[in-house]
């Protein structure tokens, strides 16, 4: 496996808004730029399902057009599984196809090594899932999770849906589901009304967000939006454990709401696993960056949600700054800094508004599964004093998702910190790993030869 022919000036990981902006900005001056994503198309989660040529969302349309006009090599359905020394990463295709873009057409393996001069991590965020009895029943899924499924072909017309959890995503999801014919019974937001009201007021001061908010309000007319309200149990019935209802609580009141789907997510957690593998410094769970989005590791930049949960506008500006900074256009990067600082305030507001309430810790009981991969129950996890001890003794977090779902949940319940990240950073086949090992061994031997 040769490596020299696949060297990029800038390699961008993640093709959401931050990644697209980073790649386009870096490519403006003629640098050789590659963008990879584990999705088959660009857009990330927020622009998933937007037409690549005629996107309805104006931001998506603008950036898709820029992307199409730029010389950027896109590697679809591709994921980084390991990092090697001296600016190399090992990637694999998640669908068994060959790794490839326009100029990389002769790669025989589904696993390959790519070399970069600068690396920009735009790995986005995932939903926070908090366990409660019944949360493992089929048809209980993430809020963004159900939306993503609808965007990729699931029909929800006429289905009763309860949307619950926390964050502005709940309303966007509810509006989207309704547009696709779902009967949205209720949107349950755990945050208290005064905080949500303050958040709404601040949106009224931002023209672009205001238009979005009114559009969502129009789509949601007649759907109750209840604050101070959260799910405590999902109720199923029969051999197939068919979801029938969700038990909700608001203050001291508890009641059941019938539903075919429960779309439930408690806002977002950053995807920092790759940054951690690269040994980038994290602060309070986020990747620490300077004013040019440079991480603590040389030649590695980070933009978007891994640095703070601040919405799409902030992600785009951070992506642009990282892209310009990575190719040495520091003046262009610096020009965007005031804009970034303004948008940073929105990140603070989001965090304050949708902070999770204590009561969410009490819905779980000792029989509730915490680790869905290994079926480890809360009663067993609770007996341990750290994430590491729980992993060793119960296999919690040892399944294919590698603790991406139960890790943040145990952090919420017990204040545990995730331990160091080891490759493969995504579950990979033995064949992929064998190739990665071969690459490392070869490198080791070569560096040995050079030193002789």
């Amino acid at each position, binding site marked *: 496996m040769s490596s020299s022919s696949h060297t990029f000036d800038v390699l961008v990981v993640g093709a959401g808004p931050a990644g697209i902006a980073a790649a386009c900005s870096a490519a403006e001056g003629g640098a050789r730029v590659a963008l990879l994503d584990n999705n088959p198309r660009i857009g990330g989660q927020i622009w998933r399902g937007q037409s690549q040529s005629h996107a309805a969302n104006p931001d998506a349309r603008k950036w898709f057009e820029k992307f199409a006009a730029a010389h950027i090599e896109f590697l679809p359905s591709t994921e980084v599984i390991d990092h090697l020394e001296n600016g190399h990463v090992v990637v694999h295709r998640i*669908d068994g196809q060959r790794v490839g873009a326009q100029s990389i057409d002769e790669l025989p393996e589904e696993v390959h090594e790519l070399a970069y001069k600068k690396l920009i991590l735009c790995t986005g965020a995932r939903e926070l*899932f908090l366990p409660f009895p019944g949360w493992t029943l089929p048809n209980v899924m993430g809020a963004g999770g159900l939306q993503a499924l609808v965007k990729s072909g699931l029909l929800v017309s006429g289905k009763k849906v309860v949307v619950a959890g926390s964050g502005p995503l709940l309303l966007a999801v509810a509006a989207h589901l309704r547009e696709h014919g779902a009967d949205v019974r209720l949107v349950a937001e755990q945050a208290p009304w005064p905080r949500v009201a303050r958040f709404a007021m601040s949106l009224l001061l931002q023209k672009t967000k205001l238009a979005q908010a009114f559009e969502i309000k129009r789509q949601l007319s007649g759907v109750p939006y209840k604050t101070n309200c959260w799910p405590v149990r999902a109720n199923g019935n029969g051999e197939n454990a068919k979801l029938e209802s969700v038990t909700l609580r608001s203050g001291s009141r508890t009641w059941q709401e019938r539903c075919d789907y429960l779309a439930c997510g408690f806002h977002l957690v950053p995807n920092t696993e790759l940054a951690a593998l690269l040994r980038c410094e994290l602060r309070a769970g986020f990747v620490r960056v300077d004013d040019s989005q440079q991480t603590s590791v040389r030649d590695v930049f980070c933009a978007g949600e891994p640095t703070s949960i601040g919405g799409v506008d902030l992600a785009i500006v951070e992506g642009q700054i990282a892209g310009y900074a990575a190719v040495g256009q520091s003046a262009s990067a610096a020009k965007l800094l005031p804009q970034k600082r303004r948008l940073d305030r929105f990140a603070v507001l989001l965090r304050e508004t949708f902070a999770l309430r204590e009561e969410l810790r009490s819905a779980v009981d000792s029989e509730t599964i915490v680790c869905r991969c290994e079926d480890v129950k809360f009663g067993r996890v609770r007996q341990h004093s750290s994430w590491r001890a729980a992993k060793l003794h119960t296999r919690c977090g040892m399944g294919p998702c590698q603790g991406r779902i139960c890790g943040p949940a145990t952090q919420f319940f017990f204040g545990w910190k995730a331990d160091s990240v080891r490759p493969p950073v995504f579950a990979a086949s033995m064949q992929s790993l064998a190739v990665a090992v071969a690459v490392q061994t070869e490198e080791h031997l070569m560096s040995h030869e050079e030193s002789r």
Partner: protein
Amino acid sequence: MPETIHVTVNGACIAVPSGATALAAILSTGASAVRRSVSGGPRGPLCGMGVCFECRATVNRRRYARTCQILCSPGMDISTDVSDEPPDYV
């Protein structure tokens, strides 16, 4: 109108609109569970974005495929009824 393509889910041929994921094809058969957990419980998709692995199934004989991230292609063979033992994956 989107173009229709045909795939096989657990041996049955079904039609899906082009652009649908393998997961959408599985769910379009009326199933809500995609796999059985290690203790036998039915499980369906959770995250919809390739993180949780709850939607994993065998696609074109490739096991542990995250069906929410894989687009259907003509003739794709998807099966959900295999054992969950992961001998060749870590």
